């Protein structure tokens, strides 16, 4: 078992004897509790940050206009009433209207989501098809110049902040070579630099994680046995080493995907990519309560849901792990 998966496997093992349904209910309840804590924290933080009526209407707005604005968005109610009303609306799927754009938050979110998903998908593809093979190569050529070179690249990639990578890419491919556009969405070439910027950290992390997992697995008895049985090297690597080494990689991918919607803000802002991250930045600076609250809740729900899916994926990847607790290690 790789070190990366040790904690999760043992924690699952502690559930030995817990029926699947009970486990699922526990997880769902815990998820709902987390969501409620997130929602309440964001609600309170936004209310402490000042009155959006002034931020949106400006200081010269008349008292009647301010009162009308507050009434329209329920800001004239007590904090407790606002909280209960908003909670009730969220439970019925009503995220409310943007105070700034006067459009439903759901409409704004859905309009921006495709851009973020597109960017995330490209970044994931780039990171996966380069990062994992790089890690495998480094592991298989352990302690060679290839290994050291790959890890140096990965180390640099993981250390470089996204905004720095973005600027370097823009300087090189937009300004110097004039190959790629630096902003916007619509043309295929516009996604290249944002996707690379978003992918580079994940790519590096995947390469390092894959390498270390592969090296860990390579020392296992069953790999020695498989090799001794005369299995082709490709089969040993792909069927035995890679599959068993993939648990921490899948965990990492799951965490990255779950954080992607909210984690693209910097990249989207630099490249003027019209996604959800960009919308969050605009909503926070514009004190758009409904948008910020709803988006934070969506992002939290995504993280929680993805974690659940990743947990479930473990049982498929490692048959020793069973939700029923019948571990077969």
């Amino acid at each position: 078992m790789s070190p990366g998966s040790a904690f999760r496997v043992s924690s699952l093992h502690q559930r030995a004897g817990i029926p699947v349904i009970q486990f699922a209910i526990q997880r769902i309840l815990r998820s709902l509790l987390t969501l409620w804590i997130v929602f309440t924290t964001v609600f309170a933080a936004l209310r402490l940050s000042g009155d959006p009526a002034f931020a949106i209407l400006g200081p010269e707005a008349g008292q009647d206009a301010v009162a009308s604005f507050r009434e329209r968005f329920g800001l004239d109610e007590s904090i407790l009433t606002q909280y209960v009303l908003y909670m009730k609306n969220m439970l019925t799927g009503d995220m409310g209207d943007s105070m700034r754009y006067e459009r439903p938050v759901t409409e704004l979110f859905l309009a921006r989501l495709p851009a973020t998903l597109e960017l995330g998908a490209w970044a994931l593809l780039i990171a996966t098809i380069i990062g994992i093979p790089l890690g495998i190569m480094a592991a298989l050529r352990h302690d060679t110049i290839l290994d050291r070179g790959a890890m140096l690249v990965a180390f640099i990639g993981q250390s470089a902040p996204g905004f720095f990578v973005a600027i370097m890419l823009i300087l090189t491919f937009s300004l110097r070579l004039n190959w790629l556009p630096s902003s916007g969405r619509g043309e295929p070439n516009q996604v290249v630099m944002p996707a690379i910027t978003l992918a580079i950290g994940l790519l590096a992390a995947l390469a390092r994680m894959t390498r270390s997992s592969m090296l860990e697995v390579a020392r296992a008895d069953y790999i020695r046995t498989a090799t001794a049985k005369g299995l082709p090297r490709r089969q040993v690597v792909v069927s035995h080493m890679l599959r068993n080494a993939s648990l921490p990689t899948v965990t990492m991918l799951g965490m990255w995907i779950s954080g992607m919607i909210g984690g693209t803000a910097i990249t989207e802002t630099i490249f003027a990519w019209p996604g959800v991250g960009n919308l969050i930045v605009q909503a926070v600076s514009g004190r758009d309560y409904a948008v910020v609250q709803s988006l934070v809740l969506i992002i939290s729900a995504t993280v929680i849901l993805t974690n659940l899916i990743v947990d479930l994926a473990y049982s498929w990847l490692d048959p020793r792990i069973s939700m029923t607790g019948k571990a077969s290690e």
Partner: protein
Amino acid sequence: MTSRIFSRSLTRRSAVLAGVGLAASARYASVFAQTPVAWSGATPVATPEGNYAPATGVERDAFVVGMYGLPDNLEPAIGESNVSQATLLNIYETLVRRDFRNGGAIAPHLATAWTQESDTQTVFRLREGVQFHNGNILTADDVVFSFERILNSADDSKFATVKNTYIQTIASVEALDDLTVRFTTHAPDPILLRRLTVVPSFIVNRAYVEEIGDDAFAQQPMGTGPYTFASFDPGVELVLERNDNYWGAISPARQVTFTVIAEVASRITALANGEIQIATSMSPDQVTSIESNGRNVTRSIGLANAHIIGFNGKAPGLADKRVRQALSLSIDRALIIEAIFLGRATHLRQFQFPDYGELLDESRPFTEYDMDRAKQLLDESDYNGEKISYQLIPGYYLNNDQTGQVIVESWQSLGINAELEVLDAGKIGTDEMSAHTWSCTNVWGDPAAGYWRQFGPGSYAQSAIWDAPAEFNEIGNEASQTLDVAERRGLYSQLQDIWNVELPATDLYAIDNIAGVDAATNWEPNPLHAIDLHAFNFSFNE
């Protein structure tokens, strides 16, 4: 029939004006000195005066403007923000406009001529044959509707702020015939024409707005301008298509996209890379970088907006006006302009904008820096070491962070217990205000738009931070209802004297509006942030 009757009346009026040597009183003539007083009757002006982009015949399919933001919606009546003013005038138009290449003079637009019937009544002749984007013909009824939807709105409606701060002097608007409309003001209004050049005076089509309703109209705008609405993605882009049925010269770009590129560096990069052709809101230190590739240039004009410091007279330490005077005197504006703005900002003469025209008192000194006098005033004041915060929203105004640091240092040198405080946008307008960054837009090119609009009766300033002396309001009211220029000049001079003592705010500087532009584009920026793409301000060399 009505038209003929009116036509006769106009002919008589024109004859009187021409023959008798301006039968209208001398004071009318002085008020409307920048306007064609003589009625031009039914002769439409094909294109507005003041063309300054040479017509080259070169066209482009697409033109992209990179901006830091877009309007929240496209309702013209409430488009006060910089980004609204930047975009909306390409879709909607006003009766008259200001020609900024001609000192901001009033020029014909949807109205070809106008005349003043009395102290409170002005009649406008509309341009004939102007089509809205849906094909409807512009009539006086549309003008009436455009104003009545604001004037008759409730005080808690979204139109309330503009109704009470921009066109509150207008009592009624009535159609005399299909192409003639009369404006009546509650009292003589020396700046009526100027009010009609900006928000909320855009002309909309009654039939269209009544059909789709105000809310839908704010998302699907329709006017008479050189560009028609194509699509709007809030916070992302606004796409316009050329109006090939436009009444004036046709603009040279078939499609214009206003796209949000929030980061300044990203806008410069996009310009350098040819992705956009105009990059708005550039700072002086970026000029060299923008122009370095030889393909782009910068164009600039002094903004009709002054950065100011608002003093909350109800906050600790700021109640004594001598403290406020001392704070103002301790700021070396010339140094800030030179060091931080590289000279690309204007030092005002005691809160007077340079485009006040005949009302500008050039004998007044530039707002002073005198540390010795500041110290003396502070010694004489009731100041007792209270903490005075200089509040700013980071990045809200160009270079306000750097300027804030200089100002706080100056105040500390003066002996003030001063500190820089980052102010959250949500705290604006609350009783937590102290000394804070603010700005004042001279939206009409007149003192009435300066401290009077922002600090007069009913303003946020008088309700929240300043107990104005009665004399200030009396003189200001008189000035706002006086047609005679010399008289107004005298009244505003008195108002300025009171201002200098009271100082509910102090002016810092008016910055330049700098834009990076593709060198092949003939286009000039505007003091009110407008990205004006009318053909008279927009053409291509290649």
